[in-house]
C-alpha cells in the first residue's frame, strides 16, 4: 500500500492512497465533542441513579463505576480509534472509476464505475473547514450505494476527483 499524499498531476493515477493525514486529528476532535456530550448526558443519568438509591455509598460506587468505565471507553474511542480507522481506509481513482476500502473488523471494498456516477457533491462542514478537509459524495442509480461518502480528503483533492468523475458528455443518458 502506497501512502501517497496530495500531489499535483492527474488524480486518476490508479494508485491506492490513504486519506489526508489531517483526517486523524479531525476525527479525534469530532470524537471528543461527541464523547463530551454523551458523557455529560450519562453523568446526569448516573447521578439520577445515585439519587434513586438514596445517595448511598453502594449507589455511588455502582453509578460512578459504570459512568467512569463508559466515559473511559468514549475517551479511548475519541483518541485512539481515528488512527486505527485511518490505517484501514484507502481509495483508488483510475480511468475506470473509484474504489473505496474501509472497515477495521468488517471490511468492505466498494467499486463504483465512473460511467455509473449520476452526480457528485463535495461538502465541507465547519470543523472540516478548519482542517481543510472535504467530503466527496458520489450518487449512483443503485439501491445500496445510491449515495457513497468518502470523507477525509483534502478539500482541493476532493474537488479534483469530482472533476474527474463527472460525466464527460458521452454519458448523456439516452
Amino acid at each position, binding site marked *: 500500500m502506497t501512502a501517497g499524499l496530495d500531489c499535483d498531476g492527474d488524480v486518476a493515477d490508479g494508485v491506492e492512497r490513504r486519506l489526508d493525514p489531517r483526517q486523524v486529528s479531525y476525527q479525534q476532535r469530532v470524537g471528543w465533542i461527541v464523547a463530551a456530550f454523551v458523557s455529560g448526558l450519562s453523568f446526569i443519568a448516573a447521578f439520577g441513579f445515585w439519587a434513586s438509591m438514596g445517595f448511598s455509598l453502594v449507589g455511588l460506587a455502582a453509578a460512578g463505576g459504570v459512568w467512569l468505565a463508559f466515559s473511559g471507553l468514549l475517551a479511548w474511542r475519541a483518541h485512539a480509534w481515528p488512527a486505527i480507522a485511518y490505517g484501514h481506509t484507502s481509495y483508488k481513482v483510475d480511468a*475506470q*472509476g473509484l*474504489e473505496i476500502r474501509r*472497515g477495521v*473488523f*468488517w*471490511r*468492505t*471494498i*466498494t*467499486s*463504483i*464505475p*465512473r*460511467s*455509473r456516477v449520476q452526480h457528485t457533491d463535495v461538502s465541507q462542514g465547519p470543523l472540516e473547514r478548519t482542517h481543510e478537509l472535504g467530503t466527496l459524495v458520489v450518487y*449512483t*442509480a*443503485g*439501491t*445500496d*450505494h445510491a449515495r*457513497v461518502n468518502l470523507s477525509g480528503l483534502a478539500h482541493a483533492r476532493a474537488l479534483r476527483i469530482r472533476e474527474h468523475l463527472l460525466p464527460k458528455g*458521452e*454519458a448523456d*443518458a*439516452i
Partner: protein
Amino acid sequence: MPSEERLHPVSILFSFGRSLKAFALPGLVGLVIAVRQPGPNVDAWMMLFLIPAAAIAVVRYLSFRLRYEGEELVIRSGVIFRNERHIPYARIQNLDAVQNVFHRLLRVIEVRIQTGAGAEPEATISVLPAAALDEMRRRVFAREATPQPVPRVEERVLLQMSPGELLLHGFLVNRGMVVIGALYGILWQVGISDRMFGPLAGNAVAENGRVRDLIEAVLRGGGVSAGQIAIAVGAVAVFLIVVRIVSMGWAVVRLYGFRLTQVAEDLRIEYGLFTRFTATVPLRRVQAVTVSEGPLYRLFERVSVRVETAGGRTGQDGTANAREWLAPLLRRDRLEPLIAEVMRAQKTRSAWTPVHPGAFRRLVKRRLLLAVLVTAVTAFAIGWRGLLVGVVAIPWSVLAARRYASHLGWTASGSVVAFTSGWLWRSTTFARMSRIQAVTLRESPFDRRAGMARVRVDTAGAHERSHRIDIPYLERDTAADLQLRLAAQAADTQFHW
C-alpha cells in the same frame, strides 16, 4: 405545434368518486351515530364535504392539460397553485395503466408514469380515453424525437396463461390467507363476525375450542385421545384446503387473461378480470430478473419470474408489485428462452460455480447454535419434553445447512451475472453487466478467519426484501477477482436509464 390534450370528461366522476371513497368510512360512522342519537343534521354536514369535493373534481378536470413536446411530456394542473411538470421521455421508466370495471364501461383508462425518482409514480393521469394510451406509448417510447406515424410492429406473444395455469398458480402461490384475512377484517368491522364464527368457535376455530384443549393437554403432559388428534388434524387439513381454493379463485380474478407480449423493444404485460392492468416495460430498462420456485413448484416443473425496473418501488397498492410479474407461472423448459429474450443474451446459463467448500462448516455452526438455543429454551419452559424439539431440530439444521451450501452458486459469463440460492425455496437473480451500479466486496471477521469474502452487486430499483446478487462464502481471491472483473465490465458499458 404540439397539441394540448385534456382529460376525458368523465374524469370528474372518477375524481369525485375517489373523494367519496375517502369519505366513506367517516361518513358511515356519522350515519350510524346519527341513527342512534338524533341530533345534528348529518345530511347537512355531509353536504359540507361533498360540495367542495365536487367542485374540486370539476376544477381539476378543467385545469388539467397534457402536452407532448419534442423531448418531453408537459403536464399542467392547478388553478391557484399552478404546476407545470416536465417529464423528459428519456426519463420515463415505464407506463402503467389501470382499468377497473367502471373505467372499462366508460372506455377510459388511468395512466401512471414511472420515472426513476422516488417511490411514487411521477404522474397519475386519471382518466384518459382508452385509445390515448397507445398514443402515449408511441410518443414516449419512440426513438425519434419527432412524433411520426410508426409502422405497426409485430406483436410477439411470449407468454399467455390459460385458466388452468392460473388455477395452478393460485394453488402454488397460496395467497388465500391474505384474502381470508381481508374478508375477516371486513366482517369484523361490520360486526357480523361474532354471529358467523360464534357457533364455529365452540368447535375448532377459536381460542376456546378443542384446539386449546389439545394444546393444554399436550403441555400438561396428560393423555390425548386419538379422537382429539383426528379432529385437530382434520380441521387443519380442511382449513389448508380452503385457503388454497380461495387462493385459486383470487388468482383467476386478478390475473385473468395474463399476456406477456413483446412489441418492438417493449414488454407489455396485461391481466385482470374486473380491473385490467397494462404495464409497458421497455426491454432496455429491465434491471434484474428473479426466478423463484418452491418445493411444490418443482413438483409441477414450474417457476415464477419477476422483473425489476428502476421505476416505481412501491408495492403498497399492489400494482407495482404485480407489474413485476414477468411470468407468474412458467414451465421450467420455457424459462431459458424467456430469460435470454429479456436479458438479450445468447447464453444466460453456463454451469453454476459453487462457493467455497468451507461454506457448509460455517453455515452449520450458526444453525446448530440456533437449534441448541431453541431446544434449551423449550426444555426450560416445558420440561424434559422440550428436548424432543432438539431431536428434530439438530439433524434438520445439519441437513438444511448441507443442502443450502450445495445449492449456492453463481456465474458471470458473457454479459450476464447470476446468483442462485436456497434449498427448498430457491431464488435465482440475473442482471446484465450493463446494469451494475456498484460492486462491493465484504469481509466479516469470520470471513477473514476462513479466507472468504462476499461479493454484492448493486442494481437500480431493487427492493428491500428482494433477492439480490449477493454471493457469500467465496474464496478470498475468487471474490477479489470477481469484483475486479464485474467492475471493469460495468465500467466498459454505458449505463442508460
